[in-house]
């Protein structure tokens, strides 16, 4: 049993869980200012109201698990990408309190301020996460001790910015599909139009990113040369994305949402396949990369962590699903709402 491989997969699963769940929270936040009336904005806010906090826990747990399973990656990545990470934290804090504070006062200026906070926080977090993913794919300069050897501005190269824009597009699309599921009446009809626009935006970004990756980041394409059957994942991804407009047209909103989730899963899988067996690729000096064997905790710790995960995560999935079930259906405002 290759514990390191298992934990690599679990890390991908944890961050996929985050992208799938907080992805639509962030998407709804980016779309927030497109809501025209106070009521529309409250409806959008409350569509994620009960679940956004639990969704964000996937990021916290992902970070904790990274610390436990691959402490050298956790240390190098977080200390190296210091400012971007601090900005992500700022953005997430702002997003959180904007949701909590926004409707607590009737005053219009107050609500406008927190609407902007919700938007900016969600947008900034999405952009920075995209920058992070883009740099994972592109590689970051690491020295012989596997410490980060770059600065801040070198992280904002064109490829990383492209992935950042793609991430924003992805979350906007995912968020709009979620809103289509959760809203009704006039707002629902307006949001359906958003789905089409964001989907086109995403497809253009995705196509561009794929081309850029194949042309400029050959290391990411290499596993597909060696094992062409992995291209199946890319095919599934395209089918999933293509399925979205079909389901929307047939008014099967939930199926569209599932397709969007599946597309995110495929994207994460493609990233993981490209990176494997590295977690932090060094660019330049690929020999300095941190891979799943060189950056990991001891086998005993990986085993203990696996037991913790096998006990805990099924419970988490079970009650998370049941909580979503409690809040199924269209969002309605009541005295408890945000």
């Amino acid at each position: 049993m290759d514990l390191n491989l298992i934990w690599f997969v679990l890390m991908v699963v944890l961050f996929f869980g985050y992208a799938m769940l907080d992805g639509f929270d962030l998407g709804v936040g980016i779309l927030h200012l497109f809501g025209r009336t106070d009521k529309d904005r409250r409806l959008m806010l409350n569509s994620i109201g009960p679940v956004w906090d639990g969704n964000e826990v996937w990021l916290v747990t992902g970070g904790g698990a990274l610390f436990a399973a691959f402490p050298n990656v956790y240390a190098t990545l977080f200390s190296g990408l210091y400012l971007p990470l601090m900005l992500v934290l700022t953005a997430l804090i702002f997003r959180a309190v904007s949701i909590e504070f926004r409707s607590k006062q009737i005053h219009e200026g107050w609500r406008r301020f927190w609407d902007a906070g919700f938007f900016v926080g969600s947008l900034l977090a999405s952009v920075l996460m995209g920058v992070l993913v883009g740099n994972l794919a592109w590689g970051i300069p690491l020295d012989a001790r596997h410490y980060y050897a770059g600065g801040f501005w070198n992280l904002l190269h064109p490829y990383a910015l492209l992935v950042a824009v793609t991430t924003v597009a992805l979350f906007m699309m995912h968020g709009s599909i979620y809103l289509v599921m959760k809203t009704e009446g006039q707002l629902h009809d307006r949001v359906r139009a958003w789905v089409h626009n964001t989907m086109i935006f995403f497809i253009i970004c995705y196509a561009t990113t794929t081309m850029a990756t194949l042309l400029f980041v050959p290391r990411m394409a290499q596993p597909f040369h060696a094992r062409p059957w992995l291209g199946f994942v890319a095919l599934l991804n395209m089918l999933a994305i293509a399925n979205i407009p079909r389901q929307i047209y047939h008014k099967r909103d939930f199926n569209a949402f599932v397709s969007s989730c599946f597309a995110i899963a495929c994207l994460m899988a493609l990233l993981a396949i490209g990176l494997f067996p590295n977690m932090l690729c060094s660019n330049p000096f690929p020999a300095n990369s941190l891979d799943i064997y060189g950056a990991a905790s001891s086998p005993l710790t990986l085993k203990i962590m696996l037991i913790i995960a096998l006990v805990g995560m099924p419970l988490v999935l079970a009650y998370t699903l049941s909580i979503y079930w409690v809040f199924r259906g269209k969002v309605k405002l009541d005295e408890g709402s945000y």
Partner: protein
Amino acid sequence: MDASMLSRLQFALTVAFHYIFPPLSIGLGLILVIMESMWLRTGKELYHQMTKFWVKVFALIFSIGVASGIVMEFQFGTNWADYSRYVGDVFGSALAAEGIFAFFLESGFLAVLIFGWDRVGKKMHFVATLLVATGSMFSAVWIIVANSWMQTPAGYHIVPGPGGVPRAEVVDFIQVVLNHSTLDRLGHTLMGAWQTAAWMVLSVSAFYLLKKRHVEFAKASIRVALSVALAGALLQLLSGHASAKGVAVNQPAKMAAFEGHWKTSPAGMYLFGWYVPPASAATNVAGEVRGGLCIPGLLSWMIHGDAATPVTGLADFPAAERPPVNPVFQTYHIMVAIGMLLIVLSLAGGFFWWRQTLWDKRWFLRICVFAVVLPQAANQLGWFSAEVGRQPWIVYGLMKTQAAVSPGANAAQIWASLAMFAVMYLLLFVLFIYLLDHKIRQGPQEAVHAAGPALHGDRAGV
């Protein structure tokens, strides 16, 4: 200031701000369980009102706790990268377990707690309340496990890790989790949390009573909160004593700093005082506490049960391995003083309640309004004492704090993040107080009507 000092300052600031909120969540979680169970048992609408009101306060507290908490999860990596590399094998597991067992539970069922009143039955809602309270307690468990391992490391060995760099690795996970100080410190933290929330409820309820508003609500809330405050204060006495004995055995330098004890010898206990370090490094020159009140033999007696047994003094440790004494001595003593004061106040409250004179004792109610800050202060002082008392070690006896900072961290970027946190947390704190104050002035029943204009407008819009 260099990167190392700035990182310490930032960690202290962010964790101090964060720690205003989780104790409130943990304690209020317990109080909500009590209140809602009383509603389920008696069916009295008053308990329903109480639960709903305090749930709203809980939501506000919890959101800021979460927001400031993510910062902590990441900060080990951002600012303490060499620490993370050295102890990640051991320490990281506790943090990951906190996420898996605690955070998902509390954040997940929070949804039902706050928003699920009309979507689930009364019993299911109570289960949600119970699980949120449980989740918050589990969170305390794992973070105390992690911090306790830094104080009294166990269940590990130091071996070459990847690249041949030495690091701590787990040998026995049970010993890691149940290291020598975990249980004492867990009890201590939880009793602190219970009191923190109880005194907040007492403060608000006393305020209502003084203003003669929501009188039945206030009285019922006080009954619950005072019970929790009293239980917490008395148990804290036991927990504090056990914890101190543990520190004397496992972290003798810290105990020496707590009490300003220089030479290993039978020791008295200073109730207060000011520590003056030795004027020179000559061996016959001693540090001593001045201007204080000392009870001879008491420290030896408290620790060993015998006034003649020596207590380890600061002189037994090389100068570089002694914590800064006055910061530790003063914070420790003030924390203990507050703890004693809280015992007196809760006993007084209990006494007046028993005599059925509590509602008329306006001077006591006024004290209750302001006493909300006491447990908060004790929490902060206690943590300061514990963490500064551990210096210069980040892991006691194993790794020094100065070796733990992220290598190559530049001071400019830490200034930037420090400034960002300072500004943002100040803003959040002001808003927290503002919104809390607003909610308190609105009061329980009024909360429904105040939401009215927005609510009715929405309904009309449909």
